């Protein structure tokens, strides 16, 4: 491990994420029950009940199975929304930096606008308008998370634009598209991958909050935020329903943050703490 420079923290992060990825990929094989199967005879059983390791929810559904299936949604939303945010942000930022002038001004004012509205406020408002669905959650989180990418991409493009190798490419008759694709974007990857890796965690947290309010994924699909919401009215009598999914979220986001820190130290030494 030392040879590729993985430290202890990164190893813990990778281990946690492998565990979550394993749960998500093999959910039908490792989940002991159908996550949506209701059984009123078994409602609100505490953890440790035979056959129900983590207990059951108010409808008698197995919490362990629901958490295992919930990992799928968290990972899909976390990764897909970062891809959307990155795609929107990098495109707009690159255009702003490369073209400049009015286009640049308009895009950057749009970014200012976005930053004036707190992320969760905007996500909540848009989610309320669009209605709950997996696709909408990804779109909402993606569209509200683009600004950082745009700023970094723009800054990088501005600093690369005047450099000799870009001048040389232009002198050789390369088109704008080719210059951006071949000479500008490769310079961007290191900082952007670091931002993206850390953002996956925030997206997972945001999805959980939206689902907790019933504004995320439809109630029929088990997600970590949704499972916790189901237990809200029973917190004092059946603590496990609302708290156990939170631990799953915590460990996943912790894994992502540990890995993101390591990536940042490796790829961007100037940011090292």
């Amino acid at each position: 491990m030392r040879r590729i420079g993985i430290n202890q923290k990164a190893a813990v992060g990778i281990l946690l994420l492998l565990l979550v990825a394993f749960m998500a990929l093999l959910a039908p094989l490792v989940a002991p029950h159908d996550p949506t199967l209701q059984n009123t005879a078994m409602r609100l059983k505490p953890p440790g009940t035979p056959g129900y390791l983590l207990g059951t929810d108010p409808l008698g559904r197995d919490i362990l199975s629901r958490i295992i299936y919930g990992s799928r949604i968290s990972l899909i939303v976390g990764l897909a929304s970062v891809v959307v945010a990155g795609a929107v942000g990098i495109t707009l930022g690159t255009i702003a930096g490369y073209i400049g002038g009015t286009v640049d001004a308009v895009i950057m004012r749009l970014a200012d606008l976005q930053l004036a509205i707190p992320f969760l406020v905007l996500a909540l408002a848009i989610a309320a308008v669009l209605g709950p669905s997996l696709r909408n959650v990804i779109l909402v989180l993606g569209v509200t998370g683009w600004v950082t990418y745009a700023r970094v991409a723009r800054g990088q493009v501005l600093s690369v634009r005047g450099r000799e190798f870009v001048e040389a490419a232009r002198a050789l008759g390369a088109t704008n598209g080719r210059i951006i694709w071949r000479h500008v974007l490769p310079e961007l990857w290191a900082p952007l991958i670091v931002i993206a890796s850390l953002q996956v965690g925030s997206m997972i947290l945001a999805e959980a909050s939206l689902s907790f309010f019933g504004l995320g994924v439809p109630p029929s699909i088990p997600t970590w935020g949704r499972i916790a919401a189901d237990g809200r009215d029973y917190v004092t009598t059946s603590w496990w329903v609302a708290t156990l999914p939170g631990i799953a979220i915590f460990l996943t986001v912790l894994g992502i943050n540990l890995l993101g820190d390591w990536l940042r130290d490796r790829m961007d030494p100037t940011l090292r703490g």
Partner: protein
Amino acid sequence: MIRYLASRLLHGVLVVVGVVTIVFLLMHMAGDPTALFLPVGATPEDFVRVRHQLGLDLPLHMQYFSFMAGALKGDFGSSIRYSQPSMSLVLERLPATLSLTGLALGLTVLASVPLGVVAAVRRNSFWDTFCTGAALAGQSMPSFWLGIVLILLFAVHWRIFPSSGGSGFMAVVLPAVTLGAYSMGLATRMVRSAVLEVFRKDYVRTARAKGLAERVVLSRHVLRNASIPVVTVVGLQLAQLLGGAIVTEQIFGYPGMARLAVQSVMNRDFPVVQAFVVVTAVIVLVVNLLVDLLYAKLDPRIIYQ
């Protein structure tokens, strides 16, 4: 300086106009709200009449101009649910939210500065691992979960704090800790790396070389210079805290404007949501301006023109 302030204020007004526009478009996307104003069993004639009263039969650009004209006067229409001006509903609850976010921000600074400094001074020791570990944990917890756990421990089990509702200082403590956890984590790590950065500077070596006590080096040279990036992050966190208040206020049944906004989203009471988004944006813009002005105080090299 005055020119700088004027241009910032003008820019701020433009951003607010943009926010109002976004809010208008969102409401338009949400569909025709006429039915929400009508009782069950209303006739089609009632529908046409109310639609006309609300101005929804006008072309979109006319609706936009009248909305904008109202918005500039602070009028976002009446709440569908409460039949009161939506802006005054939001403003009534603003002080509660401000004291919650203010306390969360205060806790952020109080916790992150000592933790971050200790982590940096005792780099790679047990204390460093402890402080950075706690910071990372704070950044990785879903706030609704932390809120529930704190309620279970401190309100249900030990009965130290009220679980929800209530008034006075005790009622704000748990929500503020919940709300501030993420920012505390972020700021602690920021303080740590800012202090480590300043430690490497020549003037710190000079200060040590001339025999100053480490305590004096830290307070006179390191902390002051490390404060600039920290102020940036803490300032930017206010926007995040206002967003996070949405979750915290709901969990604790805290009577602030963010909880009102969540309930209004659920009830499709969009005038209230609009007023909330605009009020939030104005606060964020004002705080960003204050942060920029604070830079000039902290770092005399910064002069705004």
